[in-house]
């Protein structure tokens, strides 16, 4: 008799341990802005991937004589640039460049920086001194200036050209950021018991480093990545301003802002549209970054 009553009274069972993925999804999509950020990023990837299909005009095709610096509206939704090329189409192609400059640079520098940081932190001693001091040396160069120097050099040897010059130059300039983050995380974790336990169980250094230390570095790394994606796109704009940006006729948001800058008084859409595009994408990156950090770090859930 007793058992029956328990059930029909409607006492809820203690919450069943929600599967990790379901909790991740619930937390991630909990904040509407994070969802918005993801939507923007997805749209950007689609725009970059299917740029040729989406663009009303060929972004590189010159307009006719009278179509230079048209105001937004009419056939050209966002107006045209000096050579009569459609700003909207170049904006869509620009997404491709921004993604390439953003993700590939972050990927390259992460691919080099993260292991360096872990190795330096894990082994310590001379290795730590050498790696971290090298990183400090690179950190001493303001990112834009190092990129400027490297781009000037890389451009000479035209082993790589165009957008890759900008990507390689920027990647090298931001490697120290990753090394320092993972170095810090490794130092703080190295002393924990479960790392020693792993060593005691005889797992190899590599395994400890990349199976146990690396995952802990993800939250701070994600924050760093989202902050840097914005900075990278701005650096590309800076390089265009200094004259060594993407090769013509490439369409890049940074270069378009530089064009807009030169024809400021005549066509505000020329700088406003890439400006808003950059702001939107960086906002999206940061929101998704915050969302990921929350989802991966339950302690902070629902408080930010």
């Amino acid at each position: 008799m007793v058992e029956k009553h328990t059930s029909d009274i409607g006492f809820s069972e203690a919450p069943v341990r929600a599967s990790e993925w379901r909790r991740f999804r619930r937390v991630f999509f909990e904040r509407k802005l994070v969802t918005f950020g993801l939507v923007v990023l997805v749209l950007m990837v689609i725009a970059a991937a299917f740029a040729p299909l989406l663009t009303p005009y060929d972004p590189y095709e010159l307009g006719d004589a009278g179509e230079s610096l048209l105001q937004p509206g009419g056939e050209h939704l966002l107006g045209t640039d000096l050579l009569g090329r459609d700003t909207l189409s170049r904006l869509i192609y620009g997404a491709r460049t921004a993604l390439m400059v953003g993700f590939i640079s972050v990927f390259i520098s992460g691919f080099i920086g993260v292991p360096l940081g872990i190795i330096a932190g894990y082994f310590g001693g001379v290795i730590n001194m050498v790696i971290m001091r090298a990183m400090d040396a690179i950190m001493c160069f303001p990112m834009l200036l190092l990129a400027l120097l490297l781009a000037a050099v890389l451009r000479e040897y035209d082993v790589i050209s165009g957008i890759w010059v900008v990507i390689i130059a920027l990647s090298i300039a931001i490697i120290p950021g990753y090394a320092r983050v993972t170095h810090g995380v490794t130092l703080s974790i190295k002393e924990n018991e479960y790392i020693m336990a792993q060593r005691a169980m005889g797992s190899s250094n590599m395994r400890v480093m990349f199976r146990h230390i690396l995952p802990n570095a993800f939250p701070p790394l994600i924050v760093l990545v989202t902050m840097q994606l914005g900075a990278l796109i701005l650096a590309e704009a800076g390089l265009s301003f200094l004259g060594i940006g993407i090769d013509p006729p490439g369409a890049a948001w940074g270069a378009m802002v530089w064009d807009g800058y030169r024809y400021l008084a005549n066509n505000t859409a020329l700088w406003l549209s890439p400006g808003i595009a950059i702001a939107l994408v960086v906002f999206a990156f940061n929101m998704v970054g915050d969302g990921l950090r929350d989802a991966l770090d339950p302690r902070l859930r629902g408080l930010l």
Partner: protein
Amino acid sequence: MNKLLVCLLVLALIAVPLFAACDEDGVTTTPPTTPPTTPAEEEPVYGGVMRVVGGTFPSVVGYPPEFSPTDSIYALPCIERLCEWDEDGVQIPVLATAWVVDQDNLTITWYLREGVTFHDGTPWNAEACRWNFQLQLDGGRLPYGQYVESLEVVDEYIFRMHLTDYTWYMIEQYGWVMMISPTAFENAGDTLEERIDWARSNSVGTGPFQLVDFQRDVILVYEGNDDYWREGMPYLDGIEASFIPDPVTAAAKMEAGEADMWIYAQSVQSILDLEEMGLTVNRGTGLSGMFWSLLPNSSDPDSPLAIQEVREAIEYAIDRPAIAEMLGFGEYEPLHQIASQDWPGYVEGYDPRPYDPAMAEQLLADAGYAGGFEISIMATDAARDAVSALQAYLGDVGIDVEPDIADFGRYFTALFFTGWDDLVLAASGINPDATDLFVHFGPTPMTFMTGNIYKSPEYLALCDEALDPQYADAFEAMDTIRDAVMQAGEDAMIIPLWRDLSVAVMQSYVHSDYFMIHGVIWTPYDTWMEPH
């Protein structure tokens, strides 16, 4: 969701006031602009310090042997020459009153102006003139210096040059040596190096203005020279030339009335906007602006550009009027020969290769490049839009252009010394008497842009003939010069593109003939400003 709306709202909020601030038809609050009056009848007014802004700046102000074109323009108010061009390109006397050429015993005798003193009070005479020529020779920078045998002071104001050869072009080269005060230079230091160091940032000449302050990359301050040899001049109390590297900022300064004159103004759109707002734009008589052309690496046998048909195809493939219209808003002059319409050496009606893509493809096929080929175009970042335009047009006929944007270090080295591969987009100055035909594209040693351009023997012969001593000056040699231009066109030696615009923009109250004379000569002594 409201957080996002706020964000967009804020973004718009930021953009709106600034956006409104710079739309072009907004009411401008610049000082009241009086209707532009024609300078001729106005009665010049004394006084005022003219604020000049420029996109380039001199690095040397008082040591002529190291002057670059920019340095010499900024030195004009302070240092003068023996002779200079007038509007029509005729040499008019300045520090020299007359010059006599004796072709038989190869001498040039300069009769110098009397009663002229340097700013430090020392007299201008034949000895000072000889000293300046010697200074140029020692510095290894005197053009045609290799033809100078000896320099002779005949009399207090007569100076003779003994030469090993003579051409009419030398008058201009020698006449343009800028004269500085020998005494000021000599007592500026013990060793030559110290004196040169001093001269780099100090300038003592005979000009209408004295240089009183030079802050590198910041400002040049001139003051009026009271005992200037032209009576009653200069009208201005002084000139302040400051360095504004960014054209958009310079345009903003003009619009805000923070500057009186903007020299080296090259962004066409800003110039036209300012003109619309009532400022005066001196386009200059004759030839201001640079002569843009594609220089082929045609002397390299295995480059496709060595084949004349390929060069012709490239010329056919480019719609120069359309690009000139687009880049220059109607201010650029599309070119179809190695001379501009305002130029004496221009051959009327000679337009060998107007825009004809079909013909271009045909020529490429004949040359065995039916499938097109890949070439690179080297250019500076300032010409980024031009390269994009050329890339588009050449791309239409199958010539796949790979742009090579170079920083000015690499660009100038390639252009002047080490040569370049395929094509380079080059800009060169234009002289009214077609002399730059020889300077830029003529035979060595004078020319510096020879690099790797193939020049047909006929063309070179014509160039030499044009320089024959039998001609007293360029105008006599003009027929031969026109033949040379025609020959260059026939050979498709280079691919002329367009002549751009480089002007001076002035507030309406400023009256000056700046850049009136071929973008090189400026007569600051007769510049004046209405009270404003």
